[in-house]
């Protein structure tokens, strides 16, 4: 996606002060509360979602009445004389190596949805304009929190332009006025409803996107802008505009409430990215995934939510998709951690075909509540980091390669401990009750062998790097006759020639010697 500097300069030009005699100084908004709308409009969105990186001239094409026409040229294409509305044939005749991109409305919608989720940090009321190129944020209640309209605007703008979108913005007391002002590229900040008639007066009638017949009719009458409309007698205007267009003007002026529902955030989040070039290169895929993860993070964070399972679909041209499941130990929205996990997945990935697109899906999961003194006795963020560490280790080494240790109330030494795989589950993190075995634990070795190892013997003396000297014992352990794993052993502490203290036993039935542990 080409990065452009935001087409926006701060601070905004404030609207001219209202005429001295204002009839109704600010009609009360519905519900009696003052409202203020920030509109962020993305004029280049159709191009941004399909453009390939670089400065090569390219253009988005849409179907016109007489074949395809240029919808939006890139800056480089525009510099070569390509303009909106130009038939594609004419454009290609002018510039044969023009990169032609079909319009992808679904990608535009996805980009807007992703941005709207990010914008949820500023206000709960974020609306995607049905026109499909703008976001509307109701910000009256958020101004104090963000330090005024200027600061809020700056934060919103830097968030969007940081994602490579060009944008136009305006603030006005009604949503539609903000939208029209933004679309006109006027960069205006209007705080009072009473200013709206004056401010909107020179918006051309082509701008609101009314039906061509209506616009044509108005222009033939010499009605060029909204100011001209407002000067017409209302019944005449209603006849020429039709009821819906008149309603829009009323909404823009705050004379009629406008319904702008807040967009709902779905619970299954989905982000998609088409790669500019097909690739199998793990590093490139990771870079692309990073973008998706950032978008995911942006949608999770304002909701204070995380994801526990990421589904990554790698699209191939010829073959079926490759699907990766990236599981996290607990819900998280940490991009760096997810990326690191994904990197480990990628390193083990053998791709049958080059990847053309990445689709990331995740179900929203609540973050676990933060308790100041968790069971680990650590700060929670340390617990989070530990969980992340275990994920990474398991990904590379296998699920069972990492385990915790627990004691079991069992006489048979090999059963007196057990590995726990879910060592970090909060419920299992309670400190162990003091070991309740019948024997003093100083007689237990710090190291145990996974399986007792048979020892050679010379006469009755067991050997391990030479003859062993039995220094303590025997301790008889007879258990397990009830479950068939019968154990009848005499355990001794032995010392080897090299100074090792070993835990050995003699099996009473066979008389064989085994090494079972090392005191270490």
């Amino acid at each position: 996606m080409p990065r452009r500097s935001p087409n926006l300069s701060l601070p905004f030009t404030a609207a001219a002060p209202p005429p001295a005699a204002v009839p109704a100084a600010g009609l009360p908004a519905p519900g009696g509360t003052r409202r203020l709308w920030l509109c962020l409009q993305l004029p280049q969105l159709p191009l941004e979602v399909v453009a390939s990186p670089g400065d090569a001239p390219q253009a988005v094409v849409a179907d016109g009445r007489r074949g395809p026409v240029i919808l939006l040229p890139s800056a480089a294409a525009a510099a070569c004389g390509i303009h909106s509305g130009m038939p594609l044939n004419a454009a290609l005749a002018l510039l044969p190596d023009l990169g032609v991109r079909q319009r992808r409305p679904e990608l535009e919608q996805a980009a807007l949805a992703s941005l709207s989720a990010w914008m949820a940090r500023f206000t709960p009321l974020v609306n995607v304009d049905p026109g499909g190129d703008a976001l509307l944020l109701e910000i009256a209640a958020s101004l104090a929190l963000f330090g005024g309209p200027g600061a809020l605007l700056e934060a919103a703008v830097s968030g969007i332009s940081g994602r490579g979108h060009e944008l136009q913005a305006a603030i006005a007391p009604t949503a539609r006025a903000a939208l029209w002002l933004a679309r006109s590229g006027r960069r205006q900040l209007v705080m009072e409803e009473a200013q709206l008639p004056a401010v909107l007066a020179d918006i051309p009638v082509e701008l609101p996107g009314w039906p061509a017949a209506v616009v044509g009719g108005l222009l033939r009458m010499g009605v060029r802008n909204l100011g001209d409309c407002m000067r017409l007698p209302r019944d005449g205007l209603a006849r020429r505009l039709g009821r819906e267009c008149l309603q829009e003007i009323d909404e823009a002026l705050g004379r009629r409430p406008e319904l702008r529902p807040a967009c709902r955030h779905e619970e299954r989040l989905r982000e998609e990215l088409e790669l500019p070039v097909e690739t199998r290169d793990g590093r490139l895929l990771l870079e692309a995934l990073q973008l998706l993860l950032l978008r995911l993070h942006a949608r999770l964070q304002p909701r204070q939510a995380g994801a526990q399972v990421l589904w990554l679909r790698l699209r191939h041209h010829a073959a079926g998709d490759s699907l990766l499941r990236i599981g996290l130990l607990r819900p998280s929205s940490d991009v760096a951690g997810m990326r690191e996990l994904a990197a480990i997945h990628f390193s083990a990935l053998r791709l049958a075909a080059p990847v053309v697109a990445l689709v990331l899906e995740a179900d929203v999961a609540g973050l676990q509540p933060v308790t100041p003194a968790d069971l680990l006795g650590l700060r929670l963020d340390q617990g989070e980091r530990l969980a992340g560490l275990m994920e990474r280790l398991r990904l590379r080494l296998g699920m069972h390669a990492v385990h915790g240790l627990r004691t079991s109330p069992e006489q048979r030494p090999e059963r007196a401990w057990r590995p726990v795989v879910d060592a970090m589950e909060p419920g299992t993190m309670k400190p162990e009750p003091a070991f309740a075995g019948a024997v003093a634990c100083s007689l237990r070795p710090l190291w145990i062998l996974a399986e007792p190892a048979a020892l050679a013997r010379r006469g009755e003396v067991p050997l391990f790097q030479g003859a062993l000297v039995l220094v303590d014992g025997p301790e008889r352990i007879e258990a397990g006759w009830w479950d068939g794993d019968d154990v009848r052993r005499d355990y001794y502490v032995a010392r080897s020639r090299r100074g090792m203290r070993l835990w050995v036993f003699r099996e009473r039935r066979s008389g064989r010697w085994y090494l079972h542990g090392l005191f270490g």
Partner: protein
Amino acid sequence: MAAELPTGWPGLDRALGGGWPLGQLTELLVEAHGTGEFTLLLPALRRLVARAPDAGAAAGQVMLIAPPYIPYAPALAGAGLDPVRFLVVHSKQEADTLWAMEQALRSRSCAVVAGWADTAGKTSLRRLQLAAEPGNTWVLLFRAARLRRVPSPAPLRIHFMRECATGPARLHVLKRRGGPPAVAVADIG
């Protein structure tokens, strides 16, 4: 100067000029596994992972990476260590062991990271030292005693040996930061 953790062996504390250094790589060169090197660590481990449920911030996780045997939970409990605080990582290759140690250090989530990697090379050790430096983790790497003459980037190197089967352990401090080599004797049974 990095934080230090009293070793619990007065002679060794003197030889180290304080205790086990935290946030740097400590190399323990052992003749064979199971000659008492675990016992050597017990007092300091106890301090870090006390059984007390309200051990608070001082408590932490002990990550044992590619140990030669399995730490025996009943013995840990008997030695006053809560088994819950131990995590064991098995790895088949030394490269994985070193990778896991580095990951554990970088995650800053463990109080102790101990790894067993006999043939780890200089570069790997330097990587570990770099990963250890920003943190406050007690980092131990067990290697074979035969490597004691090979230079190593670890700031602290201790050769753990016994002169006879029943005698106390001798600890040769081959190298340490800000001090001369020294010998300490620890009465490890």
